[in-house]
C-alpha cells in the first residue's frame, strides 16, 4: 500500500452554526491526482483552507505528511503549494519579481532561486514574458504563472483550487497537461478541486465527491461506478440485450408479478451521471 500523504479525520467546520464541512474523512495517497468534486458552496475551498492551516477546523483534524495543519502550519506550508481560486499577483511587478517574492518567503537562497524561477517559467511557457508586468497578463497567463508559483517552492503536494475556471479551452488543455506533467515528472501529489467533471475524469486517478459538506463517494471512478450500481441492484436483474427490446416485450415483463420497475441503462455510468445522482440524493 502506498503512503498516505493527506489525511482528514472527521473534519468539521461551522460558520455561524451552519455546518459547512461535516465530518469529512479523506485519504490521498502519494503520487495520486485526486479530484475533489462538488458544486459551488459544497465546502471544497473550506476543506482546502483547513488542510493548509489557513482556517481552523471546528473539530477533527488534517494531517499532511504527518504534520497537523492546525498546530504545525509552517511545516505543512513548507511542503504544500496552494493555487487559490482566482489567483492574484502584484500587478506592478514582473512575473519574475512575483516569483522571487515567493522564493524569499520560502527562505530559498537567492542563488538557487534565480535558476529555479527560470526553470519553472520555462515549464509553464512564460519564459519569454518573464520581465513583463503581471498587470499586462491575460487570465490564462496568470493561471500559468500561478502554476509556476506552485512549482517554484518544490512542494511534495500541490493543492489546486479550481485551476481551470474562467480559462478558454486551449488554456484548460495546457493547464491539465501541466498538472499531469507535474505529477509524473516532479512526482508531486496533487489535490485538485473542480466542478468541471469532464476534465477531472480525464486526468484524475481518484476522486472524492462532496455535497453539502459531506463526502458522498470516494475512490477511483470505476469503484464509485460499481458502488452506485450495487445500491440500485438489490433484488434486481441486469440483462444485456442487443438490439433494444420492443415495447411489447417490456410490457409483458412489467405484468409479471413482483416486477415494479424497468429501467433502461447505458452500458457504463459516465461521471456526469454519478455526479448528478449524488447531488439529487444529497
Amino acid at each position, binding site marked *: 500500500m502506498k503512503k498516505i500523504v493527506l489525511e482528514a479525520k472527521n473534519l468539521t467546520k461551522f460558520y455561524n452554526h451552519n455546518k459547512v464541512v461535516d465530518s469529512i474523512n479523506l485519504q490521498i495517497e502519494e503520487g495520486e491526482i485526486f479530484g475533489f468534486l462538488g458544486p459551488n458552496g459544497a465546502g471544497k475551498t473550506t476543506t482546502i483552507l483547513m488542510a493548509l492551516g489557513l482556517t481552523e477546523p471546528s473539530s477533527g483534524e488534517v494531517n499532511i505528511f504527518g504534520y497537523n495543519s492546525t498546530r504545525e502550519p509552517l511545516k505543512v*506550508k513548507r511542503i504544500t503549494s496552494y493555487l487559490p481560486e*482566482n*489567483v*492574484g499577483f502584484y500587478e506592478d511587478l514582473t512575473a519574475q519579481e512575483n516569483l522571487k517574492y515567493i522564493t*524569499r518567503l520560502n527562505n530559498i537562497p537567492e542563488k538557487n532561486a534565480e535558476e529555479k524561477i527560470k526553470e519553472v517559467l520555462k515549464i509553464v511557457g512564460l519564459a519569454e514574458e518573464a520581465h513583463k508586468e503581471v498587470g499586462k497578463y491575460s487570465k490564462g497567463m496568470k493561471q500559468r504563472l500561478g502554476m509556476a508559483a506552485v512549482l517554484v*517552492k518544490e512542494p511534495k503536494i500541490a493543492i489546486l483550487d479550481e485551476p481551470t475556471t474562467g480559462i478558454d479551452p486551449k488554456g484548460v488543455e495546457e493547464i491539465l497537461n501541466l498538472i499531469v506533467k507535474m505529477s509524473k515528472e516532479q512526482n508531486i501529489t496533487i489535490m485538485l478541486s473542480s466542478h468541471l467533471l469532464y476534465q477531472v475524469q480525464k486526468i484524475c486517478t481518484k476522486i472524492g465527491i462532496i455535497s453539502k459538506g459531506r463526502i458522498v463517494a470516494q475512490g477511483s471512478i470505476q469503484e464509485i461506478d460499481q458502488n452506485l450500481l450495487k445500491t440500485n441492484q438489490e433484488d434486481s436483474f441486469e440483462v444485456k440485450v442487443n438490439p433494444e427490446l420492443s415495447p411489447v416485450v417490456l410490457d409483458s415483463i412489467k405484468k409479471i408479478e413482483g416486477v415494479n420497475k424497468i429501467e433502461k441503462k447505458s452500458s457504463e455510468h459516465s461521471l456526469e451521471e454519478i455526479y448528478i445522482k449524488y447531488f439529487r440524493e444529497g
Partner: protein
Amino acid sequence: MNGLKVVFWKEMADHLGSRKFIILFAIILAISVSVVYILSQNISEYFSEISKEYMFLNLFTTSAGSLPSFIFFVSFFGPLIGIIFGFDSINSERSRGTMSTVLSQPIYRDALINGKFLASLTTIGIMLISIILIILGLELGVLGIIPNFEEILRMGLFFVASIIYIGFWLSMGILFSIVFRQTTTSALISVMLWIFFAFFILMIASVIADQIVPLNQNSTLEVAAKNDEIKNMILRISPVVLFQEIVIALLNPSARAFGISSLVKLNDLLPTSLSISQSLMVIWPQFVGLIALMLICFAISYIIFMRQEIRAT
C-alpha cells in the same frame, strides 16, 4: 522572523517607488520649505516674538503672516499621511487575490500585518526626517542659525512624537482596511474620523462642558476653571489635541501648562525656560496617552486580522 523581514523589505521597496510616496513627499516638502523660507525672509518682523535663546526651535512654531506654522502642518497632514499609507494595506491584498498566495507560504500570519505596519512607519520616518534635515540645512545656510544641543534633542523628541502620532493614524487606517473589504469605504471612514478628531471634537467638547458647568457673566474663576477642565478632558480623547500639546511643550521651552490654568498660574512665575526633562514632565501624560492610542489601535487590528477568514473571494 524570516517572513517578517521579507514582507518588510518588499513593502519598503513598494512604498519608496510608489507614486503616492513621491507626490506626498513633494507636497510636504514644498509646504514646509515655503513656511520656513517666508519666515526667514521676514524674520525681522517676527523678531520680537522669537526668544533669542531658542531661535532655531521658534522657527518651527512661529506662523508667518497668512501661513500657519510648521508644526501645524505636521499635526494637520500627519493624519493624512498615516491614512494614505494604511487605508488599503490589507483590503487591496484581498481584492487582488494576493493575500491567500502570500499566506499559503511558510510564514506566520502576523508577519504580513507587522511587516506592513513597520514598513509604512519606516517610510514615513524617512520622509519626516529628511524634511526636518532639509529645513535644518536651510536655516543653517540662509539664516546662519545654529541649533544648540538642547534644541537638537528637542527636535529628536519632536520626531519621535510625530512618528507615534502618524503611527496612530496608520494603525487606524490598517484597522479599517481589515474591517472593510472596499478600499473606498476604509478611506472614507478614516478621513471622517480624522475630521472628527481634528475639528468636531472642539465644538462637542465646549457644548458638553457648557452643559455640565454652565458659564455666565457672574461665574467665578473656579467655575470657569471647572468648565475648562471638563472641556480639556474631552478634548484629550483626540490624538490631534494630544499631539498639539506635546509639540507645544517640546518646541516651546517656556510652555508649562495648558488651558485656562496656563493663563492663571503663569502670572506669578518667572519667565524662564524649562529644561528638557521638565518639559517632558509637563506632557508625559499626553505622551503616554498617544502611545497607548496607537498600540490599542494596532492591537485591535492585529486581533481582528488573526481571526479573519482568508477567502480568495
